[in-house]
């Protein structure tokens, strides 16, 4: 609290840990939205950026254009660090208000993000992240740690990229009882199924095409086996039901056994097949499901979509780009702005 009071009159200082697609996307978005943010009276300054091998600090605010250029040219954003732990160094040596965690996802250990986030919360930083890893086995711990420290931890970007769903559940649908959530949570699978149905491609060909277009990874198993969808489903369920479900609670079937003939047969009957994640309070399932071709969940291409069934609002459906550097950064920016505004209110009216 003291620290927050001292900050009065200063800009909102953030660190970015992880400077890949998402971290760089955020830098680009902050640059392109500089004027919009100024007009909103929001002064966000990036005071530290770390990637896996280097660290860039600038207490007056880093020149993001230069940082992006440096990363592009040398693969490093700043000075090499011997500790190999940029996040720790940032937390120990750079004064700031909020950490953006955008390192790679590890669904087993949640690391390095889990440690980064817990440390940030322990040292008085709000956290915004796009990283699913830490939430899959430690949701309750993370939420509790933030609450105990009177800090905010927001993670809209972890599920569905730009598609607003976490904050929709937590804020807009507050007071509703959520009965069921179901959605298409993985754009890669959805692209493959769409192409298989449209062109009668078999799974291998559709996958190959997706890889050529950069939609699927070289090792696609994380997506096509349903692991990514299951991770997101855990986060949605824990958010909606305030549970502490983990990845192991999800019954998972991927899309690798779907055939073009099956899709054709489904289509003849007015249906298509989509990889659907479904969460109720006591059941988490990811599996290919039959969806009426007219149903919103029969969404096409790489888009994500989710339907939330509630007691008061009834059925709410959202859809949007499930991934992408700028799209994901947009969700992070929105979380940052939300925290910024709350932070301003806490300071006493924002002036």
């Amino acid at each position: 609290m003291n620290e927050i009071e001292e900050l009065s009159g200063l800009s909102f200082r953030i660190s970015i840990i992880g400077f890949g697609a998402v971290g760089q996307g955020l830098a680009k978005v902050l640059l392109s939205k500089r004027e919009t943010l100024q007009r909103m009276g929001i002064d966000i300054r990036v005071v530290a950026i770390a990637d896996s091998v280097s660290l860039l600090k600038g207490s007056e605010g880093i020149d993001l254009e230069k940082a992006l250029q440096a990363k592009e040219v040398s693969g490093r954003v700043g000075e090499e660090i011997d500790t190999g732990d940029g996040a720790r160094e940032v937390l120990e040596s750079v004064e700031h208000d909020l950490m953006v965690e955008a390192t790679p996802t590890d669904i087993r250990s949640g690391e390095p993000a889990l440690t980064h986030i817990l440390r940030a919360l322990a040292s008085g930083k709000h956290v915004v992240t796009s990283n699913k890893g830490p939430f899959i086995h430690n949701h309750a711990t993370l939420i509790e740690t933030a609450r105990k420290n009177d800090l905010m931890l927001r993670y809209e970007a972890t599920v569905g990229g730009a598609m607003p769903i976490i904050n929709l559940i937590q804020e807009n649908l507050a007071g509703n009882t959520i009965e069921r959530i179901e959605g298409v949570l993985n754009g890669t699978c959805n692209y493959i199924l769409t192409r298989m149905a449209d062109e009668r491609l078999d799974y291998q060909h559709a996958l190959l095409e997706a890889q050529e277009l950069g939609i699927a990874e070289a090792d696609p198993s994380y997506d096509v086996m349903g692991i990514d969808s299951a991770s997101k489903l855990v986060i949605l369920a824990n958010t909606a039901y305030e549970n502490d479900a983990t990845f192991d609670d999800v019954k998972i079937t991927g899309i690798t056994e779907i055939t073009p003939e099956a899709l054709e047969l489904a289509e003849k009957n007015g249906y298509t097949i989509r990889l659907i994640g479904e969460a109720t309070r006591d059941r988490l399932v990811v599996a290919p499901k039959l969806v009426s071709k007219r149903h919103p969940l029969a969404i096409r291409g790489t888009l994500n979509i989710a339907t939330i069934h509630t007691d008061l609002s009834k059925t709410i459906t959202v859809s949007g780009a499930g991934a992408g550097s700028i799209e994901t950064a947009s969700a992070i920016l929105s979380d940052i702005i939300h925290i910024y505004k709350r932070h301003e209110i806490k300071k006493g009216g924002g002036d």
Partner: protein
Amino acid sequence: MDIELKDTPGQLLLALQPISEMGGNIQSVVHCHDKRTPRGTVPIHVVFEVAKEGLMEIIRRIKANGVIVARVDERRLHEQTFVMLIGHIVHTDISETIDAVDSTGHSEIVDLTLSMPDVKRVSSAFMVIAADSEDSLALALNVLRATAEDKGLLVIEPIKDDAIWM
């Protein structure tokens, strides 16, 4: 439904018309020409599907047409869902899979479409399952899931909304 017709032309129409008038869907008509009831009428077995509300009116109209309604065997299979199977459905003996569902006694597979590309590739089936109650349907699905798992078949079920739509 078992009905009895006089052995004169036009009788069958009198029996079947009320069913279609009430929006019923006739599935089969078994006509045993060589059989006679003690009354000298021809027994006919008609299977049709109609919304619950329509049944009494159909019976009334058939009777009004002078046709004897001997027996109405109501199987209220008004709960329906559908699933797809993918795998070596034929190799693993599809009739066994169907029997497993039918053997629950309260449900049956009322429609089945198969797609078999060629012997080496997996086939798929789209099946409609009907049951007399939600519980029977759930039971039938469990039986189907278990049978499919034993046979290494992938079951694809509809999302919840779609099952309600049917």
